[in-house]
């Protein structure tokens, strides 16, 4: 899809037009909306898995949300990129969030987030190496990691690690379920990873050793 017949502007011209009022502002808003609709559509087509009849309407909704967000954050734009690139991020963010919501709307996170990993989860999470010696080394590392999760993490941290890392639930969906925000859940995960890293180091597994056991090159 091509953004047809929109006016090329410098960053300063975008800001001036969007803040100007009157005809210039109306034209700039229409152009901005065309850019953001393109970005939302591109994101949904690339990553969304959204059915075609619904995609156009969802893209329109996301573009409209993004226009509102861009206008609310105009004063945050520092000119470190092209204005349109900066604005694209708002539309992509809205579109991917909407797509994730659609994909996960029928999945209950209640049970997943209410419990800690079980023994069967632990067995299922492991994929043994073919080499017997490496398999043993990896098993020892995995047992140490599980112990670290049991001993070091809070219930909330275990739930977040389980959902986002072990079950591949998008961070946004955990955020939505907990009525939290990305920064808070990311920090929860980061704190959990730091604790586990310290636990592994205390048990002889530096980052380099972990990578070596996993056979990362």
């Amino acid at each position: 899809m091509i953004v047809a017949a929109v006016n090329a502007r410098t960053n300063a011209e975008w800001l001036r037009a969007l803040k100007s009022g009157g005809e210039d502002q109306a034209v700039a808003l229409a152009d901005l909306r065309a850019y953001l609709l393109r970005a939302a559509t591109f994101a949904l087509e690339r990553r969304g898995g959204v059915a075609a009849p619904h995609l156009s309407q969802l893209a329109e909704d996301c573009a409209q949300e993004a226009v509102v967000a861009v206008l609310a954050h105009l004063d945050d734009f520092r000119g470190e990129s092209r204005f349109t690139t900066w604005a694209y991020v708002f539309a992509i963010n809205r579109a991917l969030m909407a797509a994730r919501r659609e994909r996960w709307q029928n999945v209950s996170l209640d049970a997943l987030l209410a419990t800690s990993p079980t023994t069967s989860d632990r067995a299922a999470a492991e994929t043994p190496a073919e080499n017997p010696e490496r398999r043993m080394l990896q098993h020892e590392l995995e047992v140490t990691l599980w112990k670290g999760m049991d001993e070091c993490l809070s219930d909330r941290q275990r739930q977040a690690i389980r959902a986002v890392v072990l079950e591949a639930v998008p961070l946004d969906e955990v955020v939505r379920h907990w009525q939290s925000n990305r920064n808070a859940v990311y920090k929860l995960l980061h704190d959990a990873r730091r604790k586990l890293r310290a636990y592994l180091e205390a048990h002889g597994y530096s980052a380099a050793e972990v990578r070596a056991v996993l056979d990362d090159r």
Partner: protein
Amino acid sequence: MNASGPLHHLLRLIAGTAESEISCSECFRLLPQYAELELADPSAVVAPSPLSQHLQQCGVCREEYEVLRDLLRADAGPPPSEPT
């Protein structure tokens, strides 16, 4: 998800954990400049940075970055064909 299983994926994330990491909001702010820089000169973003480290750890931010990068590439048009 890593091919060797979610537990190994977690172990790799732990191995790549930094003492201090930028937030998703800070990533959101830095993303446009980073994507443009990568488009203009891929070698310019090879060195590890707080943003690249965050993108390794955060799946939703990484997905947004990848879509932005691909959109900018599409905007820029097809790469020049190889001389024959």
